[in-house]
């Protein structure tokens, strides 16, 4: 595509196409968008984050990541759509403009670039990173079991051959460590939204323990509102609740770590569908999925803006 206006949002794209899209978006919106490199993947690919900012210094910020599980292609595709949507709506949509006038947004569209490249070149259904484990012929770590929150407890596997292998230690995956370092260095992230597929769920901590988070009532209300907003567009039904009570125990997950770091508004989404296509969601559903998800994201972002802590 020659511009982000002619970019095709209703098809899936390769890593190179997405990275080219980021450069176009930055070039077209230099006052609003910049591209940060927060690290390199295990195989040496750059890990990029788009920063949307209208000024200020170290403003409170909202983090959104997509694609930590590489085969969940609807998430990277939605991330691309979100990026364009942010540039379109700033200055046009009053509620969103208020958010970006006061807060920055960081968007990591391809959190696991090695895995994503691998899904395009070798195995469409690859989920993990591509790091090697000494003593095992199996490759990769589940990057959403590698965070320092209940690391290695039930809800992750110690077998390198498992799809939920937690890795040799917390943050062993550079794709995870890069985000951890970024979040710590920034120090002012107020909402952390991690996007997965599928199952149509909006989840908050915890995943590794049954104990409720101290902000449970508020998180539950926010999730309820966000799901209502999402459903208002196409009637897509979502469930919401804590990870452990809504799906299953999962240790070493990203939003458990961020919540424990004091980022109160830590949520994770599971996008469409509920089990017809699974990870192979037809491209015709990219835009509707992104549109409805955006409404939920807006609800959480607005709440974050209006409830400083």
């Amino acid at each position, binding site marked *: 595509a020659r511009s982000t206006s002619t970019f095709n949002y209703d098809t*899936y794209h390769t890593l190179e196409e997405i990275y080219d899209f980021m450069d176009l978006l930055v070039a077209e919106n230099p006052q609003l968008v910049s591209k940060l490199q927060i690290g390199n993947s295990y195989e040496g690919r750059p890990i990029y984050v788009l920063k949307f900012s209208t000024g200020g210094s170290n403003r409170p910020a909202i983090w959104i990541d997509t694609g930590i599980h590489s085969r969940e292609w609807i998430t990277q595709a939605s991330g691309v759509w979100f990026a364009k949507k942010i540039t379109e709506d700033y200055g046009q949509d009053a509620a969103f403009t208020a958010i970006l006038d006061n807060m920055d947004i960081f968007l990591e569209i391809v959190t696991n670039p090695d895995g994503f490249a691998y899904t395009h070149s070798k195995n*469409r*259904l690859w989920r993990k990173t591509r790091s090697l484990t000494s003593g095992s012929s199996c490759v990769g770590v589940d990057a959403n079991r590698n965070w320092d929150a209940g690391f290695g407890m039930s809800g992750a596997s110690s077998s390198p051959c498992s799809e939920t292998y937690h890795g040799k230690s917390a943050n062993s995956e550079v794709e995870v460590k890069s985000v951890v370092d970024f979040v710590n260095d920034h120090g002012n992230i107020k909402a952390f939204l991690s996007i997965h597929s599928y199952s149509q769920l909006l989840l908050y901590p915890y995943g590794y323990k049954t104990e409720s988070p101290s902000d449970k009532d508020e998180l539950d209300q926010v999730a309820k509102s966000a799901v209502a907003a999402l459903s208002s567009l196409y009637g897509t039904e979502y469930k919401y609740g804590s990870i452990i009570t809504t799906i*299953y125990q999962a240790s070493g997950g990203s939003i458990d770590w961020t919540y424990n770091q004091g980022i109160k508004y830590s949520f994770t989404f599971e996008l469409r569908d509920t*089990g017809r*296509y*699974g990870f*192979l969601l037809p*491209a015709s559903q990219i835009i509707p999925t992104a549109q409805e998800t955006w409404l939920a994201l807006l609800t959480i972002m607005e709440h974050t803006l209006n409830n400083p802590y």
Partner: protein
Amino acid sequence: KEDFVGHQVLRISVADEAQVQTVTELEDLEHLQLDFWRGPARPGFPIDVRVPFSSIQAVKVFLEAHGIRYRIMIEDVQSLLDEEQEQMLASQSR
């Protein structure tokens, strides 16, 4: 590229904790090369699993022997992947 010809995704419905445990045991059988898209959780919560062609019969027999209900969610994974690839190529040409 790895091909997924004949792979099916099964949706398994577990009625009680015992059935959840039974499917969990299935997860541990590495030679079947099962790929759980949604792992065993609790009764009433569906389990989705991609089964390679070579394991389909064994898995279905196992489930039926334990009285565990399932249906085919995706008949042939590769056919969906082919459609996806064709659409991407068409989009690039455009």
